């Protein structure tokens, strides 16, 4: 009997040898005359176990990992004889780290062949679109609104309201734009879903298109993600071939087609108006709002612009109903969030769960602390523009409002763990440096403020008039926060000020407590 073996082609798995392992399996099987079929999937998201190889059995898939090429011959023997092996992890779905999750968006990621429409359908794909095609635009909007889905890119704006604005706009053309410029360090959920289940993004965008009356969509993917670009392009071609993109979608009168565009290494293009400029072929300079992209977006036309994960959440909502999604979560944060555990962490990867889990549970219990085995000292939540939290704030629940109340943000759901060797002055300086490198230059607080910030923190590091220079930093952060045009300049103060507030001892000498003005600055 042919053995079906699943090996990820996700970039994170490939980066630790998945391609070599796949090749070794093919060679070992051919040497033994064993019949095997290798399916290259996405990743299940248990990154410390990558490359994680799965075998299809009557009991479900059995996982083995982390596999190296030298393990393969013995592993193949164990698989053939259903015998034991040191790397055997048991039934994949029963692995506690996976079982504890609530996978709505990532349910198929790591399971299906991301190149196959048939496999996507066999695992429940395109049911959301099928139902959407039987509904009116208003009915779909009602579902999306009632689900409570908020933009997963970071800003958390209600998706239903955004779509409704575009649906009501009158124009000769409208666009659907997918923001796949996932530039935040510590985040990789967009990359994983595009590589592991690209059809769910296509399905979500198609539903958006028929809802608001747009016939063309763009997916703007950063150039640092070549594997995701390849996977999305292959999936778009496959969807077109079976009539799920193009004219007459699913045999109806609806038309919708997609095109991938590749960024060129500018972080600021993750900001939606900058992304639109870039898509139009210009420098990624931020636009002033209003007008909102929903009124005047791509090429001046009404446009839905959402993050990859927002679109990827839509098929579940349409298939299972708004309530099924809204039943998860807390407060105004409904549904699930694909959280990414990264940096110096023992069990890193993709953990999708309902909002409400605490930061401490995520870092200590689920993440297992640091891989260096040292004490966790700081965690940065929400990318380069997110605050550094100390252990004292580990009781913060993962929720948009709860993080905002503590001068932080959940952003795109990335958590980067640092051990006790971290120097928080350097991290504060890096935040300013990064802003200086990536600033689009349109507004002064961001363009000049970040450069002055680097210079001033350098003076603090050199011990020059530390208290006075700290006051300068605080003032600068105020100006950037309130005077910048977009989140790059506006949020760079979060990592800087949080470092200053929670890790004051790193800034040298006996500086006393943080001044009262600091509160206002954040």
């Amino acid at each position, binding site marked *: 009997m042919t053995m079906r073996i699943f090996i990820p082609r996700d*970039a*994170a798995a*490939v*980066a*630790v040898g998945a391609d070599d392992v796949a090749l070794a399996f093919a060679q070992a099987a051919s040497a033994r005359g064993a019949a095997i079929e290798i399916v290259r999937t996405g990743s299940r998201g248990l*990154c*410390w176990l990558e490359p994680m190889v799965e075998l299809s059995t009557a009991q479900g898939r059995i996982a083995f990992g982390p596999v190296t090429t030298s393990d393969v011959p013995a592993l193949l023997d164990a698989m053939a004889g259903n015998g034991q092996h040191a790397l055997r992890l048991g039934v994949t779905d029963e692995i506690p780290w996976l079982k504890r999750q609530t996978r709505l968006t990532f349910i198929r990621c790591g399971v299906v062949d991301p190149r196959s429409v048939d496999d996507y359908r066999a695992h429940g794909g395109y049911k959301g679109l099928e139902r959407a095609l039987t509904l009116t635009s208003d009915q779909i909007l009602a579902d999306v609104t009632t689900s409570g889905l908020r933009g997963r890119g970071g800003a958390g704006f209600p998706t239903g309201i955004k779509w409704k604005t575009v649906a009501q706009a009158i124009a000769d053309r409208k666009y659907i734009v997918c923001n796949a410029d*996932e*530039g*935040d*360090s*510590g*985040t*990789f959920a*967009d*990359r994983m879903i595009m590589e592991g289940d690209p059809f769910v993004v296509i399905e979500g965008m198609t539903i958006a298109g028929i809802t608001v009356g747009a016939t063309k969509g763009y997916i703007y993917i950063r*150039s*640092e*993600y*070549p*594997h995701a670009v390849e996977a999305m392009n292959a999936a778009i071609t496959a969807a077109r071939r079976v009539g799920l993109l193009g004219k007459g979608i699913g045999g109806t009168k609806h038309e919708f087609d997609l095109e991938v*565009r*590749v*960024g*060129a*290494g*500018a*972080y600021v293009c993750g900001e939606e108006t900058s992304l639109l400029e*870039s*898509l*139009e*072929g*210009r*420098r*990624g300079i931020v636009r002033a709002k209003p007008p909102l992209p929903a009124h005047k977006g791509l*090429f001046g036309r009404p446009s839905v612009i959402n993050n990859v994960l927002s679109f990827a959440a839509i098929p579940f909502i349409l298939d299972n109903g708004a309530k099924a999604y809204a039943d998860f979560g807390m407060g105004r944060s409904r549904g699930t969030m694909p959280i*990414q*555990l*990264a*940096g*110096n*962490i023992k069990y*890193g*990867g*993709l953990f999708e769960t309902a909002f409400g889990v605490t930061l401490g549970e995520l870092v200590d219990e689920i993440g297992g602390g640091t*891989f260096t085995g040292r004490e966790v000292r700081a965690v*940065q939540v929400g990318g*380069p523009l997110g605050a550094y939290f100390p252990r004292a704030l580990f009781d913060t629940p993962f929720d948009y409002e709860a993080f905002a109340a503590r001068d932080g943000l959940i952003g795109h759901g*990335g958590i*980067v*763990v*640092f*051990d006790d060797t*971290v120097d928080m002055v350097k*991290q504060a300086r*890096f935040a300013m440096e*990064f802003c200086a*490198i*990536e600033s*689009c230059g349109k507004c002064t607080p961001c363009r000049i403020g970040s450069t002055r910030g680097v210079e001033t923190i350098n003076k603090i590091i050199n011990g020059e008039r530390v208290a006075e220079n700290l006051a300068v930093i605080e003032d600068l952060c105020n100006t950037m926060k309130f005077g910048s045009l977009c989140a790059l300049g506006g949020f760079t103060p979060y990592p800087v000020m949080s470092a200053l507030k929670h890790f004051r001892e790193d800034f040298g000498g006996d500086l006393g407590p943080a001044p009262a003005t600091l509160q206002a600055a954040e």
Partner: protein
Amino acid sequence: MTVGYEPWDKARGAEIIAEHAGLEGATLVILHALQEAFGYVPEPAIPMVAEALNLSRAEVHGVFTFYHDFRKQPAGRHVLKLCRAEACQAAGGDALAARAEAKLGVSLGNTTADERVTLEPIYCLGLCATAPSAMLDGRVIGRLDEARIDALVAEAQR
């Protein structure tokens, strides 16, 4: 990979530009295509792009210089990109970057004197749970340690 690029040729450049000029907002697409063919965006191509898209030369030059990806001149034979963002910093990336710089004798953002290796920073490859990570000529590598970075540097120098 910088080996195997075509030398700049005006007719070939015009052909590439014409192939994409009909797209909406084609500038980035064209610059990417030129760089893919020639390994960089040759200066004579800029006014050609401007003419094809009915833009000013200044505007196309502005787009070309805004984005970190586009090169004015060819890179070394191999391009080694080291992720320098926070997740990789947390996992010991600073020391590994310094080690690569020392071994190659150039700082990040530069090409070795023998033009073999261009060493560049990259701000996030999205391999943050298998950090620190790098990319050598388009191939991704995670869980870097001293031995692995040494091997990568040696491979790039070959």
